[in-house]
């Protein structure tokens, strides 16, 4: 039998329920693998003692016939952007280097209530500001398919933890592709949910009208199980929907009815790696053979979506990050100085020392687009283009049920390859249009491309209407019955 840490959520649940294994054994296998593969730098903080204690408690519940849910005893990793009571939460930044949250994020609270075991907090670009984890104060994670390449970001540590079997499942956060792009770069599954499907309470904010919380897993079915545990209305996040949570795991068990799947030509335009386009066209052929209809469509506003996304994201992050003032929590000059200085200096010096260059850059950009004289030309214009994007998707979904697109225009790139900020931003061209519209998108393995002797994963995204997670998961699960790309594992062990 292969190591326990390689199990999927479905397999782990089966083995725990049949008493073939204990949560303690499963949790210890993950913790040992995290230690053995420390060169991947997937974690900022490993909560070893807490995890083993939680696993023992789970085993005791099971022995007493009092399990909390099917996920009871299943170990998981979570992006370090989620507040975890008593466990350091840095958001990847020195600004929060010693921050110990006094409460749990709602996602963490729900997983705790389900009995899932928290292994630790994963590497991320600071405050979500990045697409490679190179903007993490605790070092970047390495892509297990080729450790000279980035794993994607900002939820790169969670993607590596899933791809390298350091956990059974993980949680990420997606503002403009931060779940989907690392999933694509590591041959794993990541779900960007409908805005408001999962509570944002207790997640360190990047851009509040775009931020979404979701699962990162080894299979589509696993993503469905985890989503069911974390989704639903939360009084502490007024933007969550009161719509009922579907039985996502059940819809994965049977094929969806034949669907019309749109292929937007803007996602296959010049500048997209032709090898990636070939993989996506191959997917379209296989989906056609499975009974679905592929329809090439056009959503012209997608070409402008990345500019709209970034203006809104900069604006919201400059506002959100104003809370780091050196007064309430986080890095502060007040900690080191005996004599109190000027209040302005406490703000400006604490922030200058705590934030990275990239985070300062985004705060500067956001401050500028919101400032007097420029608000109309940048921020207000972006809010209107956002309406055009929403309309663009609404029009498309009159003709098709689901959209198929590549996740990234490029293969996993090498460390340092995108040192220019604009080049890094443009790598998000396929993922950023989704968040301003609030629609869900499921990223999943589509195929492989060989480059420099390395086999590198290519991901696709299935995009649906708001709250169509069930439809996307059903189609994704069908894909994983047709095509077994997702079971391939990196050999750098």
């Amino acid at each position, binding site marked *: 039998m292969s190591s326990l840490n390689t199990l999927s959520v479905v397999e782990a649940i089966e083995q725990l329920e049949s008493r073939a294994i204990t949560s303690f054994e499963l949790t210890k296998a993950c913790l040992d693998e995290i230690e053995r593969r420390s060169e991947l730098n997937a974690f900022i903080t490993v909560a070893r003692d807490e995890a083993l204690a939680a696993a023992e408690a789970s085993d005791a519940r099971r022995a007493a016939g009092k399990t909390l849910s099917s996920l009871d005893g299943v170990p998981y990793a979570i992006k370090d952007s989620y507040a975890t009571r008593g466990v350091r939460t840095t958001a990847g930044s020195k600004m929060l280097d010693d921050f110990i949250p006094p409460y749990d994020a709602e996602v963490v609270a729900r997983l705790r209530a389900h009995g899932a075991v928290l292994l630790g907090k994963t590497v991320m670009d600071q405050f979500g500001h990045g697409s490679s984890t190179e903007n993490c104060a605790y070092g970047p994670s390495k892509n297990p398919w080729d450790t000279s390449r980035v794993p994607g970001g900002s939820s790169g540590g969670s993607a590596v933890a899933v791809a390298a079997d350091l956990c059974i499942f993980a949680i990420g956060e997606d503002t403009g592709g931060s779940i989907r792009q690392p999933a694509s770069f590591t041959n794993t599954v990541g779900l960007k949910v409908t*805005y*408001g499907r999962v509570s944002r309470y207790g997640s360190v904010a990047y851009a509040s009208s775009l931020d979404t919380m979701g699962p990162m897993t080894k299979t589509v079915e696993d993503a469905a199980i985890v989503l069911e545990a974390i989704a639903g209305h939360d009084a502490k996040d007024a933007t969550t929907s009161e719509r009922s949570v579907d039985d996502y795991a059940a819809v994965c068990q049977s094929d969806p009815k034949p669907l019309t799947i749109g292929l937007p030509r803007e996602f296959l335009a010049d500048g997209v790696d032709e090898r990636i386009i070939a993989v996506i066209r191959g997917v379209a052929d296989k989906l056609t053979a499975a009974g679905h209809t592929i329809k090439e469509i056009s959503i012209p506003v997608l*070409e402008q979506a990345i500019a709209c996304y970034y203006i809104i994201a900069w604006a919201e992050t400059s506002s959100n990050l104003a809370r780091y003032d050196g007064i309430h929590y986080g890095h502060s000059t007040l900690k080191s100085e005996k004599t109190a200085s000027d209040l302005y200096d*406490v*703000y400006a010096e604490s922030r200058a020392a705590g934030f990275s260059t990239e985070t*300062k850059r985004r*705060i500067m*950009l956001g401050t500028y687009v919101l400032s007097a004289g420029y608000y109309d030309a940048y921020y207000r214009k972006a809010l209107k283009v956002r309406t055009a994007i929403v309309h663009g998707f609404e029009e498309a979904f009159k003709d098709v049920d689901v959209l198929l697109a590549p996740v990234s225009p490029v293969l996993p790139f090498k460390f340092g390859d995108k040192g220019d900020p604009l080049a890094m931003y443009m790598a998000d061209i396929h993922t950023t249009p989704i968040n301003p519209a609030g629609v869900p998108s499921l990223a999943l393995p589509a195929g492989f491309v060989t480059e420099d002797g390395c086999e590198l994963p290519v991901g696709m995204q299935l995009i649906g209407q708001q709250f169509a997670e069930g439809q996307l998961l059903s189609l994704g699960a069908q894909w994983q019955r047709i095509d077994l790309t997702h079971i391939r594992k990196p050999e750098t062990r």
Partner: protein
Amino acid sequence: MNDRPVLNLDDVSHIAQLARLKLSTEEEVSFLGELNSVLSMTEALDRVDTSDLPETHNVTGLVNIWREDLAAETLLEEDVFSNAPRHESSHFTIPKTL
């Protein structure tokens, strides 16, 4: 609308002051080039005719979410101040402002 200005060094200093970020001269010079480069990307928005479009601030359609004003458990005082750089009993301490 191709009248977006190009930033100069004074603009960068002003933005940094608004953002409460103490930047070195080297950082300001570096940001000057980068901000102008990145902002050039936003010219794409001019290609979208938005004259008849309203602004979208949220995509959920939810408005005015109310709840009952009920007493509930909340954080303990010691938890609230546990991460504060300086505090005295039940208040944050800051430098003298007047």
